[in-house]
């Protein structure tokens, strides 16, 4: 094994009563790509923040390049050649690329020389690593993938030999992610060390040389990527066997519950996002809508659930029309048995500043079960919330906790529990497992299939092809606002991918 770029020895860190890192030992070889995986809250980010000088470890030792290092501030880390690309970019949006790159690394009190130096340095980095980006562009006008490149450039400009990337692909499109991986491989070839923090196992398998798994603050294993499998890593992360693909029986499709006919929806700019779409959703089946994000799936969901106005067309729920003029009250649709788990749980599905129990009845607060005369029946609401917490394994199991303090996966479970427990006839789910851990994904998929087996009609929209293929009984592919094909669940990823890209137009809309 090559010389270690970083060694962490016996690192401990607690936040109050929470032990975020316990006795972590880790050795990362120079010139490799090392992955660190773990569920949300496993302590990956804490560990990297200690390495970057954001936090101080309570105990333990850090060695960089074989020498003991004291990293008290990000400045110390930068001086030791450690650079970090944060999950939420640390960029000044209305600054140019150059200004962002030199911020904090200016050569003297005036900017002129710093800018000139950065300009020639960026040209060199662009040549060496294929990191192309217009140095004079304003950051907020750049695509997300390019903004991330600016973050990488910032680190390299400061002389980083070790680059830490925290969940770098969460915000990227698949094509942008591929490009990022090419850049990372290039960096490795030039002798840099890359540390990749993620919870997406597929990325780990695709790009890393070695991988370490964290669970509940401890480092549970380190493997050579070649000698491990996705299944093994998932098991190590969650601590038990995980079904990456949930078993399900044949669907027993019944009556049509939701009939969408010639639906056309425009967005706020007047662009047609849903273009003359028709399909049926039957009791006892899961229909998946696949598509690259931004092809009208969001607008379709919003129109059906009464949030967005439709221009024309009709939607029948149990044979009776839904008012699509914008007068439709989502509350009325709920009463008629249509439940909706929105794509964007932070903005639409939850009030993050509320307690968990308040969110768990949001939208159903007029239900007599939760009322005592004109007042809320707090005891009933909390009992109900505790039931849901137990049934959906929401952690931490505290219905008085502020919703913002739950992890993404548990927030998603709060919304799912709320909507599923109303026993709706039709369930519409947008991105059921976005930002959710492997273990929770399995759970959510099982619940959705259980709903189906109880004879409910389930519509799932997801940009994750694996998820669509694993859940759906029928797959509809959306491209540019139209349904460009219907396929069965056994369809290959390649074929669906082509449909999603709008390449193949055979098998036209229903």
């Amino acid at each position, binding site marked *: 094994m090559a010389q270690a770029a970083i060694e962490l020895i016996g690192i401990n860190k607690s936040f109050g009563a929470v032990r975020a890192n316990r006795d972590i030992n880790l050795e990362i070889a120079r010139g490799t790509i090392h992955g660190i995986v773990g569920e949300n809250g496993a302590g990956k980010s804490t560990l990297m923040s200690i390495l970057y000088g954001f936090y101080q470890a309570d105990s333990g030792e850090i060695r960089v390049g074989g020498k003991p290092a004291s990293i008290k*501030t990000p400045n110390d880390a930068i001086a030791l050649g450690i650079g970090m690309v944060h999950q939420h970019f640390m960029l000044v949006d209305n600054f140019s690329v150059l200004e*962002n790159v030199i911020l904090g690394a200016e050569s003297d*009190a005036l900017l002129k020389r710093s800018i000139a130096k950065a300009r020639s340095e960026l040209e060199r980095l662009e040549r060496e690593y294929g990191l192309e980006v217009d140095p004079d562009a304003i950051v907020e006008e750049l695509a997300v993938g390019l903004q991330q490149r600016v973050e990488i450039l910032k680190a390299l400009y400061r002389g980083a030999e070790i680059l830490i990337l925290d969940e770098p692909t969460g915000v990227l499109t698949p094509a942008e992610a591929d490009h990022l991986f090419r850049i990372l491989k290039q960096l490795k070839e030039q002798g840099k060390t890359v540390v990749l923090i993620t919870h997406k196992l597929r990325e780990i398998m695709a790009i890393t040389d070695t991988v370490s798994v964290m669970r509940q603050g401890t480092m549970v294993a380190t493997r050579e990527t070649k000698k491990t499998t996705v299944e093994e890593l998932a098991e190590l992360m969650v601590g038990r066997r995980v079904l990456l693909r949930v078993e399900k029986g044949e669907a027993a499709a019944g009556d049509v519950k939701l009939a969408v006919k010639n639906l056309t929806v425009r967005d706020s700019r007047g662009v047609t996002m849903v273009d003359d779409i028709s399909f049926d959703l039957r009791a006892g089946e899961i229909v998946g809508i696949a598509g690259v994000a931004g092809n009208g799936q969001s607008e379709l969901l919003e129109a059906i659930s009464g949030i967005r106005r439709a221009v024309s067309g009709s939607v029948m729920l149990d044979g009776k029309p839904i008012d699509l003029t914008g007068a439709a009250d989502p509350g009325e649709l709920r009463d008629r048995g249509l439940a909706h788990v929105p794509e964007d749980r932070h903005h639409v599905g939850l009030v993050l500043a509320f307690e968990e129990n308040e969110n768990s009845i949001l939208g159903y607060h007029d239900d007599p079960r939760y009322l005592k005369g004109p007042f809320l029946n707090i005891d009933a609401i909390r009992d109900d919330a505790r039931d849901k917490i137990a049934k959906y394994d929401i952690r931490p199991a505290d219905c008085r906790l502020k919703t913002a303090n739950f992890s993404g996966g548990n927030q998603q479970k709060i919304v799912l529990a709320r909507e599923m427990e109303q026993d709706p006839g039709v369930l519409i789910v947008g991105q059921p497992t976005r930002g959710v851990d492997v273990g929770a994904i399995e759970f959510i998929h099982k619940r959705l299939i259980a709903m189906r087996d109880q004879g409910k009609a389930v519509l799932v929209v997801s940009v994750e092809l694996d998820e669509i293929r694993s859940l759906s009984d029928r797959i509809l592919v959306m491209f540019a606002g139209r349904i460009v094909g219907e396929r069965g669940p056994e369809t290959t990823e390649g074929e669906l991918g082509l449909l999603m890209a709008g390449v193949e137009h055979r098998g036209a809309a229903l």
Partner: protein
Amino acid sequence: MDVFIAIVQILDSTIRLSVPLLLACLAGLYSERAGIFDIGLEGKMLVGAFAGAAAASVFHSALLGLGMAILISVAFAMIHGFASITHRGNQIVSGVAINFIAAGSTIILGQAWFQQGGRTPALQPGERFDAIVWPGAEAVRDVPILGPIYSQLISGHSILVYLAFLMVPFTWWVLFRTRFGLRLRAVGENPAAVDTAGISVAWLRYRALICTGILTGIAGAYLSMVQNGGFVKDMTAGKGYIALAALIFAKWKPVNAMFACLLFGFLDALSIRLQGSPLPIIGKVPVQFMQALPYILTVILLAGFIGKAIPPRAGGVPYVKER
């Protein structure tokens, strides 16, 4: 020719009236660009005005007066910083508190020290900043057009007037051409980016507030030691708020700030000039209306004519490290 002279006179008073606005506006620019809302410009100007006039009259020195004005004003800026940067308090509340403290303490201390109903003694020559007459100003006074412009508009102002206008290009240069300016703008937009770049957010914001204090101190000194021959209670009369309005109108840019302040100064000068004299077509207008005119126009301008003003994104939000 009478019309021309009248115009020159209005423009002359426009300059005089814009100066305190301009200094306060630039002061606000430093703090708001760094992400600290400063509604306490008014109060800092007021304590500056009081400290300046008081020190000038006691020590018989205009320069000592100016120094004291700056010192006290910076001290008040530091109180704002201590509350809103170190202790992450609400910046509006802290600013309002400073305004109240300033209004009350200047009157109490003024009465205790000078027994003139909260005023400071009238400043004698040498205790105030006198007008600087440029070479040849008297000689060219009678040259048509250029004469009055040179002798009235350009020449014959106090040193603080020239200083205020020089602060405009200087502030622009600081903001856009220096390392301090780059970091200052960055900390007002995304303090986390500054923090991760290894720069202290708090120290940077304190330095911005020191700049603010210096400028409000000069603005206050101008009010009590140039425009007026001494301190009078509440002599800022809302100028700090107008300066804030001008700052928004100028979209937080120094050169725009100068034009915005000149515009507000011009409206003020016009309303003074037109008081009592009948307007064509409309006839005689009540004095109160003319006095209210600049404020009415301020509201209209801010409501309708500036388009979208995007303030520094981190403005008003105390910086707390994540987790």
